[in-house]
């Protein structure tokens, strides 16, 4: 291939990509507009087109899931991600959001289905880590390990992932959502019966994020009250906030 031919092909690809991205953005805007007036049928359709057209776009996938939650379309969301993940098996973003789609369904599922959903979510989160070991991937999987009952000894795996997330975040510029790692890592230590390390991490987090109420609360509580606060955080009956809006708004 000559340099000229390559340049030509590259230019064509760029134009196509730009057009596709523009099309996806148009679909995304149309989807969000429909969702705003509770037209979930059209809204989800357009958002699905947006995600299909731009699989690496975190915002499209995240907003699609949030709309699915509002429309109680959990199974549709799972079916959709199953398909796009099959079409794009190397997309870390899609695996991550597929995992979140499982998590999104947990609060409305029976207790055994919750286990199956959580297990499936973990599988997808692990694929995301393998494909792109980012802060988001490590934090997400690490946090999800903490939801498992003690009998499964998964909290220690969570600590390992959260330490990696912490390592990544300390290398880059400060983000407001990094406070989550301090909270979760402390919870992980608490769940592995290392209260000293838990308190140290929460303390460190509070220095970095002095106004965070969750950190303040954990540091103020002891014994059963602390247990109750942390268990409440991991109650499978309560919806986990999987909205990733913070990622692009900070």
């Amino acid at each position, binding site marked *: 291939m000559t340099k000229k031919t390559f340049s030509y092909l590259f230019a064509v690809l760029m134009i196509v990509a730009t057009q596709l991205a523009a099309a996806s953005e148009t679909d995304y805007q149309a989807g969000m507009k429909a969702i705003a007036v509770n037209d979930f049928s059209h809204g989800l359709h357009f958002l699905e087109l947006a995600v299909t057209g731009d699989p690496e776009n975190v915002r499209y996938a995240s907003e699609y899931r949030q709309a699915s939650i509002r429309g109680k379309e959990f199974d549709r969301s799972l079916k959709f991600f199953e398909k796009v993940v099959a079409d794009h098996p190397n997309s870390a973003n899609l695996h991550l959001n597929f995992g979140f789609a499982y998590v999104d369904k947990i609060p409305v*599922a*029976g*207790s*055994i*289905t919750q*286990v*199956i959903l959580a*297990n499936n979510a973990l599988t997808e989160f692990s694929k995301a880590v393998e494909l792109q070991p980012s802060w988001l991937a490590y934090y997400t999987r690490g946090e999800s390990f903490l939801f498992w*009952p*003690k*009998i*499964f000894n998964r909290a220690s795996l969570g600590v390992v992932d959260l330490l990696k997330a912490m390592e990544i975040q300390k290398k880059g510029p400060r983000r407001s959502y990094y406070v989550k790692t301090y909270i979760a890592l402390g919870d992980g230590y608490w769940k592995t019966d290392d209260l000293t390390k838990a308190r140290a991490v929460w303390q460190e987090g509070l220095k970095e994020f002095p106004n965070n109420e969750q950190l303040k609360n954990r540091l103020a509580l002891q014994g059963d009250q602390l247990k109750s606060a942390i268990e409440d955080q991991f*109650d*499978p*009956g309560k919806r986990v906030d999987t909205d990733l809006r913070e990622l692009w708004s900070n």
Partner: protein
Amino acid sequence: MNHQQTLITVLLLLILGTPARSGSAAQQNDQKWFEDVTHKAGIHYRHHTRRFNNPYAEIMQGYTKLGAAVAVADYDRDGFEDIFVTDSCATCKNHLYHNNGDFTFTDVAEQAGVASGNDEENASSGALWFDFNNDGLPDLLVVRFGHSILYQNMGNGKFRDVTKAAGLNRYMNAIKAIAFDYDNDGFVDLFFGCYFQPINIFHPSTPRFFPESFEDANNGGGVVVFHNNKDGTFTEVTDRVGIHTTGWTLDLGHGDANNDGNDDLYVANDFGTDRFYLNNGDGTFTDKTETAIGFDTKKGMNADWGDYDNDGLLDIYVTNITDDYMREGNFLWHNNGNLTFTDVARETGTYDTGWGWAGKFFDYDNDGWLDLYVMNGWVSAGKESYVPDIFAMITRPNVDFADARNWPPIGNKSLSGNEKKRLFHNENGHTFKDEAARHGLDSTRDGRGIAVADFDNDGRLDLFVTNADDEPFLYRNILPTGAHWMGFLLEGTKSNRSAIGAQVRLKANGSTYLRYVNGGNGFASQSTSRVHFGLGKATKIDSVEVRWPSGLKQTFPSLAVDHWYKLFEGQSTNDVQPWEPKR
């Protein structure tokens, strides 16, 4: 000794010598109000779980730790409530404990002819006293995985097997039976709750006899209804009356949800959706599950009815599974009065009782509020947990749960074992406070059934508790007297003779208390059919209204407190005298 010294001495004697029964609130708060008299009473024979002898035996072992049941009635009409207790191993005998009237009991099952409830093809799983022929004597139904047995009470201390003659000779893997007169024709009818579908679980012809799902299984035994023909026979009418459920039924509870005079039915199903059936008053029921309670995916084990908040409407308590690995939570269904119920278990503090079994409403401190005692614990064995094994199966893709071969054997592992029982004290109808440890009722055995009854007729409700593979407990209520009470033995004339379904509304303290005669509600257990009211400080009542199943309402004027009374349907409401046992 001068007058002053004498006065001080008398005062000291009065203070120090005051018996516990009228002790201060502070003293009472530290006191234990139940005494474990199991051994002293001679009632300590342990239960033995059935072991199966088939290719699935090791798997079934983990799921059939059932059969420790109890049923209470005064079978010989001597005024003292007797106790029937089931065992489940193939060679084990059931027990009929005759109440000697002094808080000791004698096992008379062999003499009475009701000991043989187990063999290679049948395992006792429950029991029910009910007067099927209206002769005034409680007859005995031994509920079984296999063929249940109906024993007619001959009135001379003996019973005879009338199962075939009664038309009840049917193979069912029944675990529960209750009796109430759903069509108000004057004779109680029979409702069976069945766990496994009606296949021979001792020698299954297929491995596909386990629950097909953990959340909406419909391949269980469900409910089977028999109508009482009033001639000593029964006819199966399940379809005709509109009861269509094939869930894994563990308990049945009846009560009149809308106070229309017709008792409704709550079905507690394991592995799936509980059912609520509204009695239409014409001999049929309508499934109102969706509007009344919604479709749940939990593991219903118990259905007891009682008006816990004294608002004149019967509420329902259902136990489920709540543990580290499965946080279902119980249901305390508050009756909204419009045939809908709201679950208030979280708000009232009755949500978490571990792996729940029987839960019974009763007023143990006679304060006028129904308390709750709850059994729990599935298998307490070795230190290793069975949870990872079962979860490994659950998370395997496309596994066929109905196939018993896919279920891991439990071996010597534990599952929700060593759980402490809960005694929830009702705090004025708003919340409940666990007082089990204080009263020594927090055993960690694998509890199953609870029978509530006043075994010594002193107005304080006692407890008999069954434990799987273990000795039972008999707890004598030794509440210091002071809180008043009143109780009733009801006998129907136009209504069914045992007055099952009769409601009693007692007015005192400016409140109206509702209690009713139930025909065996609660997992693996039947409590007394007598109606008991705690009255707290009230030394007199305003009135008692009985609404009989026939529809007759009778209002009895003020009666003296701290007595049992026997009331007959249609009798004169004047000159009602306290009832005393014959002995």
